[in-house]
């Protein structure tokens, strides 16, 4: 089945009616009412805005984000990257759909593709030859953007940041280097201006001033001061300077600061960011290499084996329960404690402050090993009824029933000892923080959700 998005009755749809079931819709909202997953979407017409809005919505949808999507006309827009190109003739279209379906069948672990990373892997798996090209936009703060990455991450991640993580995880590999650019160290903008300034007082009012150096008395001054009725005469010793190299030469100090009157050879260069207007040294600029990307072998392995590696896999041994369930249980415990003060429990939070940075320092496998080893130790500390969950990539929560203030202190001490051992084994500091709370200290009117949010706030 094909779904044609068109603002007007489109004759093109008719050509495909013989081979496909065709449904014509005017906008994405109309499709969302029924949510019929078609073999391919087609966006008709040449209206750029219409085109971009529909294409963006398809790629941001949780269900059809990876569907084939074609346009009927060639539209020059960065959002072209969201599409699979021009609508091919019916025969070729059928082939494309068949190929996609074959690939879709070989894709394993369907539930994994709900995360952004999973979506990207699925999208690229279905298009084996796709190269993720950066789109150049002069008015973009970073000059380049990846519209597809923005759509698949639902505009939540910075594309370059995400790409770095994906490369570290070896899911993507670079095809070619498109550009190498310097970026502002504060806002990562590439809109930079370079200004020559005085190295002494940093004033920008400097000018090129031809100077001379008299060999007889060593006087160095501006050339104008030497010129006397068509010949060069030293203003200090009045020697007639006739021949360069034997009477005088040109000093290397060629620039003159109008503000502090310093003469110097070469001005310092200062960078001004056009976006955040901060000033910095050219050496401080961040080098960003802009690549074109494709799915790596590892990425393809994940797609057909059905496993999505991410940092959380290191904690797999901990048997996490879902966040909702954890909050539900915590709420139940809090209600219990308020009703029966004899029932005690503790809440323990572990926050890994530098996990994303660590990915860059270690390779992915090493970090996984480290986290696994940590999880091993943690599991030894936990008792069977203890519950654990993860509210974000680097935030773990433990619910310890029947643990009072005394028990909690003991637990924390054992945790710290275990962590110290872990740190001794690894050469890099895992930066972690603990937060804890026991049932005696519970405020009267606070839900589990609010409690967790407050504790996270304290941690940060």
């Amino acid at each position, binding site marked *: 089945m094909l779904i044609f998005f068109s603002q007007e009755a489109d004759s093109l749809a008719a050509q495909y009616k013989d081979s496909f079931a065709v449904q014509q819709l005017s906008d994405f909202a109309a499709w969302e009412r029924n949510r019929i997953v078609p073999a391919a979407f087609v966006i008709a017409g040449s209206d750029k805005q219409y085109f971009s809005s529909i294409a963006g919505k398809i790629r941001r949808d949780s269900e059809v984000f990876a569907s084939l999507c074609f346009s009927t006309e060639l539209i020059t827009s960065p959002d072209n990257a969201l599409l699979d190109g021009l609508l091919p003739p019916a025969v070729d279209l059928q082939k494309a759909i068949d190929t996609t379906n074959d690939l879709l069948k070989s894709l394993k672990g369907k539930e994994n593709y709900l995360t952004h990373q999973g979506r990207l892997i699925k999208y690229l798996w279905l298009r084996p030859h796709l190269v993720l090209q950066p789109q150049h936009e002069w008015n973009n703060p970073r000059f380049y953007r990846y519209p597809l990455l923005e759509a698949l991450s639902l505009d939540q991640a910075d594309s370059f940041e995400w790409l770095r993580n994906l490369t570290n995880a070896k899911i993507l590999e670079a095809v070619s280097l498109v550009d190498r650019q310097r970026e502002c160290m504060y806002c990562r903008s590439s809109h930079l201006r370079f200004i020559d300034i005085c190295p002494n007082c940093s004033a920008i009012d400097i000018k*090129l001033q*031809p100077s001379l150096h008299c060999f007889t008395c060593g006087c160095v001054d501006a050339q104008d001061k030497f*010129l006397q009725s*068509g*010949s*060069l005469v030293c203003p200090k010793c009045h020697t007639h*300077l*006739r*021949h*360069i*190299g*034997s009477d005088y030469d040109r000093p290397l100090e060629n620039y003159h600061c109008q503000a502090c009157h310093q003469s110097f050879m070469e001005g310092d260069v200062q960078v001004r960011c056009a976006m955040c207007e901060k000033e910095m040294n050219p050496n401080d600029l961040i080098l960003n290499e802009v690549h074109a990307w494709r799915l790596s072998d590892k990425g393809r392995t994940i797609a057909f084996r059905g496993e999505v590696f991410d940092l959380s896999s290191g904690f797999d041994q901990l048997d996490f329960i879902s966040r909702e369930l954890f909050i539900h249980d915590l709420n139940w415990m809090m209600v219990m404690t308020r009703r029966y003060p004899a029932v005690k429990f503790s809440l323990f939070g572990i926050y890994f402050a530098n996990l994303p940075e660590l990915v860059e320092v270690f390779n992915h496998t090493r970090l996984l090993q480290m986290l696994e080893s940590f999880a091993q130790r943690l599991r030894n500390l936990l008792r069977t009824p203890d519950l654990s969950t993860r509210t974000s990539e680097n935030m773990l929560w433990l619910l310890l029933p029947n643990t009072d203030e005394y028990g909690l202190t003991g637990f924390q001490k054992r945790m710290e000892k275990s962590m110290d051992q872990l740190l001794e084994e690894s050469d890099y500091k895992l930066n972690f923080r603990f937060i804890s709370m026991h049932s005696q200290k519970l405020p009267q009117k606070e839900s589990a959700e609010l409690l967790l949010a407050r504790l996270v706030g304290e941690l940060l």
Partner: protein
Amino acid sequence: MESLIQAWYVFRITVAHYPDVQYVLMLIPFVLFFELPLYFINWAGVFRHLVSEAVEVPFVAPYHPRVTCTITCYAEGRSVQNTVISLLEQIYPGHIEIIAVVDGVTKNIATYQALKELYPIIPRYPGRSLVIVPKIQRGGRVSSLNAGLSRSRGEVFLALDGDTSFDNQMVYYAAAHFKNPDVVAVTGPMRVRNADKSLVARMQDLEYMLTMQVGKLGFAKLNVINNVPGAFGIFRRSFLQKIGGWNTGTAEDLDLTLRIKKYYQRYPHLKVEFEPRAVSHTDVPESFAGFLKQRLRWDGDLWYVYSNKHRSGITAGTMGWANFIFLLWYGLLFQIVMPFAIVIYTVYMAVMLPLYIFMLSMILVYLFYVILVLIQFIMYLAVVSDRKWRDSKAFLILPAYPLFQFITRIWSAFAIANQVFNKGHLDSAMAPLWVLKKGKQ
């Protein structure tokens, strides 16, 4: 004065007592008598210059035409940069177009690279431009100059050597002469840059001061300048193009000067000027062997140009009486005949006369020259020199200078003989053989 009287006495005796066989003996007094008037004329010219300097109101009209400097480069290497920089540094409001022609560039890559290194600094000098013309086929100095001439757009054309540099007002003073439409060529003093390097260089330094500076200044006032040197010649481009540029063969500078002079009878207003303030600095051979080699070519070329190229052109009918007489006198007698006369006479005296008379006459001749040189040098220091302190160092070697002159003359005789019997002009570093052969033989 005493030596003069003695000489006169000897002369009288000789004529009286040996009227038919002792002609040779007459040559030394001849030398004295022919040389002295030349000096007197020269001094008169310098005196005239002095008077005009003192009396005439110096008026320099604002005349700053576009100037083309063609530098003929060969194996100078990095020192060619000094030449270009000294031209960039000129204090001159007009445009200076520098054309550096590198001859046989495949062999002289170092020179070519040195020139290319200068490209980045050109924008620092307003009104200056540099064009590098690499010539793959080596064609010699003449072909480089003509290549530069065909490309030049300046009104004034400077033919310069790659190992010569210039004072920063050279172009200003030289170009000013061309305000006068009669002036077709200008030359200026050439100073020796490496005088401190060796005794031979110091001797040549003194020689340049006396001949190139005092000599040319005096002769220029009479418009009988003998040669516009190849390393430093300034011409009106339109005139140069009209007479067809340089001609193939060695000593192209003397050839060109003679060709200009041939216009003098028909166009008596034409002038070749000497500008004492347009100073150039050049390197001379530092070793004695190098010096001899250079002179072998120069003096040999004299004969080549006079006898082969301009045999029928040296007449009063083409160049006017003043230049004709001057050329006979200075060019032929002084430069060609006298070296032989000196050699023959010295040998004759050494063989025929008792040793003490020979020694005595030699000492007399020596003293005569020392006095002559001293007068000339003091006059140079007082009137012409612009670097008096530096030049006065030559006093130290002045007593030895007549000896140097003597050797130079003898060598000159050898060089001319080499040219006459051995076609020495075909053995020149200035151009490859196949080019030299195309010249008038």
